[in-house]
């Protein structure tokens, strides 16, 4: 964009929204400079902003709190950031109905605080500290609790979005059971802001269990990890979480969280200790690193991977990833919901791009053999240039057609998502 068009775009945005500023280096989206930042205060104002952006031909990146702007591919352009941090209200907590209605810019932590006063929780783990509701949904993050209660798609019951053309639309509603119309919420979850700007979300809530404990056991081989996870998931202990952690050196750990009544948890802990065998111990608190994405263990971020597979493929995927890292001479930390077939991998920031690419390729093949995929969630620029971030995507043509209908001018985060969407 030229300076002249920035000025005219800014003028038209300013008539749509009271808070429009020039972008600073801190606003850059994964290294892509941002010309303008608009902070609308309502869904209606977001609609006006999007209409103004469309009229001025601006590309738009939606931002909650900016904790995951480096995820996915960098957008081709990011003329305007629509920042939702002023829309941070928890609008309605209907405790008796176990639902919460919140603006997209609300912090997940604030939502938890509000619903926590009634002994309830939104069953989404905050795997990236400081995340907003909108950012959590756009990237479909999940943590250990997914084994017990699922992910965002199992919790979101209604949403309001602003389309690329500024039209405001709702889907779903405020009741947990509802089959009226298409379930668009699921389409927006994990869409990386490429279909619409989410402004409001309604979730079902769960009661906070009165007691929680974690049973952990060390393991030496991928086969042991796979066997331990299978033992737990096929038992009747109803785990809230089944985590696998394996750092580059030493043994790994399988961790099983149980939540429920004090008496119930006690007997289920005893059953789980038996299942996991010698070396298993129980604790009140989860071990360090629990629910933290492994590439965020250190301040210097390396490459973050998400690996998925059918449950029976866990052994093969753990083994393949470890071997690939050893052969490439890089240190790989694996951690994730083994009981759901999801693992996260971290490679150091200074790992050579070629070595990372080799780990990605070899591991991706094995994930694919077991019904899953490997996605490079975030990575330093040289690595991004050397890898296929998203890997093969079945039904990509249909996805492109959906994108074309929602955002025919590729206004929203162009290039950030699968297949260059």
């Amino acid at each position, binding site marked *: 964009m030229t300076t002249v068009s920035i000025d005219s775009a800014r003028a038209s945005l300013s008539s749509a929204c009271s808070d429009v500023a020039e972008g600073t280096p801190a606003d850059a989206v994964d290294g892509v400079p941002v010309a303008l930042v608009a902070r609308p205060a309502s869904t209606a104002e977001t609609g006006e902003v999007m209409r103004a952006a469309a009229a001025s031909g601006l590309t738009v990146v939606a931002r909650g709190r900016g904790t995951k702007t480096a995820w996915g591919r960098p957008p081709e352009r990011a003329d305007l950031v629509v920042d939702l941090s002023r829309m941070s209200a928890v609008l309605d907590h209907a*405790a*008796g*109905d*176990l639902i919460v209605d919140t603006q997209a810019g609300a912090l997940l932590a604030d939502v938890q605080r509000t619903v926590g006063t009634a*002994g309830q929780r939104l069953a989404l783990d905050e795997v990236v500290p400081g995340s907003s509701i909108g950012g959590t949904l756009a990237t479909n993050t*999940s943590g250990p609790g997914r084994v017990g209660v699922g992910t965002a*798609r*199992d919790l979101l019951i209604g949403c309001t979005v602003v389309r690329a053309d500024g039209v405001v*639309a*709702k*889907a779903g*509603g*405020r*009741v947990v*059971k509802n*089959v*009226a*119309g*298409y*379930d*668009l*919420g*699921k*389409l927006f*979850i994990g*869409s990386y802001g490429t*279909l619409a700007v989410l402004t409001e979300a309604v979730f079902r809530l*769960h009661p906070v*269990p009165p007691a929680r404990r974690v049973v952990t056991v060390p393991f030496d081989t991928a086969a042991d990890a796979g066997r331990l996870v299978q033992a737990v*998931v096929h038992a*009747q*202990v*109803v785990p809230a979480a089944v985590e696998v952690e394996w750092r580059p050196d030493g043994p790994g750990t399988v961790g099983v969280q149980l939540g*429920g009544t004090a008496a*119930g948890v006690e*007997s289920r802990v005893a059953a789980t200790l038996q299942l996991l065998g010698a070396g298993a111990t129980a604790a009140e608190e989860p071990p360090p690193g629990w629910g933290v994405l492994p590439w965020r263990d250190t301040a210097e971020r390396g490459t973050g991977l998400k690996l*998925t*597979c*059918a*449950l029976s*493929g866990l052994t093969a995927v753990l083994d393949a990833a470890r071997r690939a890292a050893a052969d490439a001479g890089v240190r790989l930390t694996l951690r994730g919901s083994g009981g759901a077939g*999801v693992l996260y991998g971290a490679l150091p920031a200074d790992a050579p791009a070629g070595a990372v690419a080799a780990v990605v390729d070899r591991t991706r093949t094995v*994930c694919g053999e*077991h*019904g*899953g*995929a490997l996605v490079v969630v975030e990575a330093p620029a040289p690595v991004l240039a050397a890898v296929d971030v998203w890997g093969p*995507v*079945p*039904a*990509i043509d*249909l*996805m492109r*057609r*959906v994108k*074309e*209908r*929602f955002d*025919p001018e590729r206004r929203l985060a162009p290039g950030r998502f*699968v297949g260059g969407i």
Partner: protein
Amino acid sequence: MSGTHGTETTAGPVLGDTPPEATSATGEAGDNSAGIAAVGRVARALMPATGVVQDPTQLRTYECDGLAHYRVTPALVVLPETTEQLAGVVRACAEHGVPFVARGSGTGLSGGALPRADGVLVVTSRMRTIREVRRADQRAVVEPGVINLDVTRAATPEGYYYAPDPSSQQICSIGGNLAENSGGAHCLKYGFTSNHVLGAELVTPQGDVVTLGGLAPDAPGYDLLGTVVGSEGTLGIATTATVRLVRLPEEVRTLLAGFRTTDDAGAATSAIIGSGVLPAAIEMMDALAIEAAEAAVHCNYPDGAGAVLVIELDGPATEVEHEYAEVERLCTEHGAFELRLAIDAAERALIWKGRKSAFAAVGRISPDYIVQDGVIPRTALPEVLRAIAELSSSSGVRVANVFHAGDGNLHPLVLFDDAKPGAGDAAEQVSGAILDLCISHGGAITGEHGVGVDKAAYMPKMFTDDDLDTMQLVRCAFDPDNISNPGKVFPTPRLCGEVPGKKKHAHPLVEAGLADSF
């Protein structure tokens, strides 16, 4: 909206007259007979002769689904046995602009599988193989015609079951469940079909075969599967489904609680949910529904009950023990005068028999009835039930209430005698007023039966034009020619046209300077 009349809740093909209600929304015959003939030729080349139905008498056996008030005879019925055959037929439909409608077992209650007079009915009942029960993955891969309960039967020897349990589970198909996002009594705890279908092979309205989701979670890209499930056959036809299998619980306890009033039973429901206990199911029946069930199946529910709750708890034995004590206490506190715990499978079955037979049982006390399906926030239960009672007494139309109390999903049964002049209209008015009550309490016009043809006209009461238009962007992406179950879900079809804003070339007249484009 129109009703399900009397015994017409019967599943499967039902003989009857083509009603005057058949409108252009469901297709007029005649103008595309050449297209139908062409699709018929393709179908006969692809599959055995018994898989292609063109005989008028046989065609009429497919004229309705479980909502038999609407009847339209399809121009052609095909019964493919493979994905290739099904995709071939759909491709032929696309090529000739012929609309098609998918049908599983035909038990749907909103007319979602109502045929088109100018279209093809694609019946999946011959695709009935459970391809894999993958215990290690906690998944099964099944064909769309597989009966819901058969998935559980196949998984039980492995210690697993398929959780969504619509009351028609003995006859309804997984493909139909997927299309309708079917629920059931136990979805209070375990969720709906959309939470349990994790992968599908889909034949798109162009006849292409695509894979959505699969054995592993979180497939990269848009969650198209999440939108396809519950789209009522308007985005294509699923030819396989990968479903979650749930571990059988260690302990199950089923409790029957008798209350004097529905207010008491509603308050007990709210108290149970509010206490942090999440039962597998909480079902409520009011006095009229109890009367019907007693007449039909002699379930021996408590004498003098104005309402009963059927509460099922499941999970680890120690947890269930604790929850049971809590539920018992809360029911008593809220006026339960009789509590009955099923001590064995036979007693449990008897308690459930009363509940599960309730719809059909109403036929014992009324010649005709409408099954309504609406949702309200659970806390509004007592208020809405009182309002329904007032509607009933002011109109003189009897209403029996049977419903999934735990998640606020009402199934009022509006009773009438079609032989009496005006009775059907009065019943429909009450039925519609109940939906208005649901909407005004922030609820939904359908919790599990779907929109179909029955409630398309109600969609604008719940959604704005922009909301519906946005949903139809998905429709246009999948089915720009509007041939996949057209006339369902949406009150007005959206003309998709070219992808908006994607201008390729100016019109030749504009380029030649002979016309302007505005």
